């Protein structure tokens, strides 16, 4: 039996975990492949026009998986952390399986609720495996294996922000935003590569160590969205890294949490803010050239700033 995982939204956070879990249970996992024009167009057709770009893209991926997989795995990320405070997913992530059922009623949807207020992550995964006809012992074993694999993956990706990373002629730019925007090269119009070509070295906020980041940012008034909290913490770290020359914040039009996060970043760090900050809002009409012009002018300003030591 094959299980399909659309390559968008929460995929960019949890794929290694899910893949290891299902493969250990003996299922075949297929991905929908990278985003392209056809997928995005198909997604735009079926979703409400006000939805954010990654959501539209998600449904394109889902539709492309329809013939490839027996089941499509769409988890519901409701509550992802309980201590020190409750951290929730954004409403679109909470309602995702229900939206999928409404938009694509013919799809075989495999879903699981991650709501730490009600039950632990382990129970959710074990219940899911039992639904698929696996024994509890096997499921528990698979979950342990998957979490180990996931921890290894996180560790390999982790990138420490230390002084001295900066090479002589290149300068360091911090990149903020959701993983599903930053890591999807089609959605962000290949922004990372282009910025690197223009002579900057990029620090992706999702490569920063999550737990240490939380510890460093305990005093910040938190957000109650799980993924946005990470962005806020990363913004704090970027602002206090002296060798960082600029910050680019990428968000999609119609992202409700993004509008608040940007404002909170602005006022929580407002007094200490000296690092140049560029906000880029993406939607399906964004032109590559327009974005490139803005990035280039931003980098030029940073170069000027460094030359005159402002």
């Amino acid at each position, binding site marked *: 039996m094959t299980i399909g995982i659309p390559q968008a939204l929460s995929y960019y956070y949890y794929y290694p975990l899910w893949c290891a879990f299902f493969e250990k249970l003996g299922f075949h996992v297929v991905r929908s492949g990278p985003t392209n024009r056809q997928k995005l167009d198909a997604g735009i057709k079926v*979703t*409400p026009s*006000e*939805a954010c770009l990654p959501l539209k893209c998600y449904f394109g991926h889902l539709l492309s998986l329809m013939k490839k997989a027996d089941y499509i795995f769409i988890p*519901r990320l*409701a509550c992802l952390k309980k201590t020190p*405070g*409750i951290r*929730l*997913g*954004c*409403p*679109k992530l*909470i*309602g*995702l*399986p*229900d*939206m999928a*059922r*409404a*938009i694509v*009623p013919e799809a075989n949807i495999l879903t699981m*609720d991650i*709501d730490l207020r009600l039950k632990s992550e382990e129970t959710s995964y074990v219940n899911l495996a039992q639904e698929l006809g696996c024994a509890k012992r096997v499921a528990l074993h698979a979950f342990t294996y998957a979490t180990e694999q996931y921890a290894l993956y996180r560790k390999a990706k982790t990138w420490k922000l230390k002084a001295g990373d900066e090479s002589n002629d290149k300068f360091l730019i911090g990149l903020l935003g959701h993983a599903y925007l930053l890591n999807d090269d089609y959605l962000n119009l290949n922004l990372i590569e282009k910025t690197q070509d223009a002579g900057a070295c990029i620090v992706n906020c999702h490569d920063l160590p999550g737990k240490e980041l939380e510890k460093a940012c305990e005093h910040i*008034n938190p*957000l*109650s*969205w799980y993924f946005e909290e990470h962005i806020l913490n990363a913004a704090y770290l970027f602002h206090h890294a002296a060798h960082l020359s600029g910050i680019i914040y990428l968000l999609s*039009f*119609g*992202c*409700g*949490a*993004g*509008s*608040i996060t*940007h*404002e*909170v970043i602005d*006022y929580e760090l*407002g007094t200490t803010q000296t690092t140049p900050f560029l906000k880029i*809002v993406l939607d399906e009409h964004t032109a590559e050239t327009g974005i490139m012009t803005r990035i280039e002018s931003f980098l030029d300003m940073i170069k000027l700033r460094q030359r005159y030591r402002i």
Partner: protein
Amino acid sequence: MKAGFQHMGNLDIVLRAIIQNLGCDVVQGPKPNRKSLDIGVRHAPELVCLPFKVTLGDMFGALERGADTLLFIGGGDWSCRYGYYGRIQCSILRRLGFEFRSIYIGHQDVKSIIAEVLHLNHDSWTTTLKNWTRGFAIAWHKSKLVDQVECLARFFRPHEKNKGECTKLSNRYLEKIDKEYRVLRLIKMRKDIREDFCNIKKADPFAPLRIMLVGESYCVIEPFVNFDIIENLGNLGVHVEPFLTTHRWLFYHTMRINEDRSFSRKEAKKLATPYWGYNTGGEDQLSIAYTMNAAKLGFDGVIHLMPFSCMPETAALPVFERISKLYDIPFLNLSLDEHTSPIGARTRIEAFVDLLAYRRNSHKKKLKDATGV
């Protein structure tokens, strides 16, 4: 202490009664209008939803009129942006140079609110309890009366002979309720209101179309934001039933208590769960349940109001469309923001009503052809 808070339908009449009885003056900005919205839009983040901008304009107005304390409703662990309103509006207003104290009214701030109220009443529990009971009693009766006026106006508006009479009458009574501070008089007023509304000149009897209003609570309740949709639909000869009113919102919805015996929250949740399993922070699950219930109760259509880019309602939109198909009930979505023109919205609503009338007639005709009656 002069307290200011946001507007929302007739919320001010009720809240003012409680707050004034607790020994605190109320200074509010003007009711939401184009000017206050423009101020809100100028200072709010660009991509935030409409209620944020309107309430920011309200707070601005209150501060300009001399309020020194602002009450923010909501706050805490919400998945919807409403939970952040107070926090961000506060920082925006402070940055603009205003000086004020902020009090958040939410589930986790109960202790600090009680301390605040105690302080206002000279730290005496007896005075506090006395004032609170009195204030609550007055507010409760006022709220019930406001609800009655709104409900009767909604009910009789399609039937009135001279257009605008119901609105005039309800405005007169709302003013009267606002000024009255004696519980007995308020209780007596109930009968007058009923009689006056019944005595309005009626046109020939007919069965008006029935429309259920669902969506985001602020957009359903605040007439400035939804372009007086209840009144306009009434004037078009439609009986409108909003799923939330100010009274229900304040005393039941915010406390998560049941009011409607015929359709309880539990029942609503059960009904909506197959289509929308979780309440994502707004009124999405309740709205979906009410849409389904409207179809069962034989309503002619459903209008869904939401601010542009509202997170929970946008996510729920495909589900509404699916329910509309499955339950065979016409559905119109209006997404509102500061650029929505009243005329554009009105045209869409009129067209929707025309379609509903046509649909009802064709159903009748089909029934007649089938049965021969």
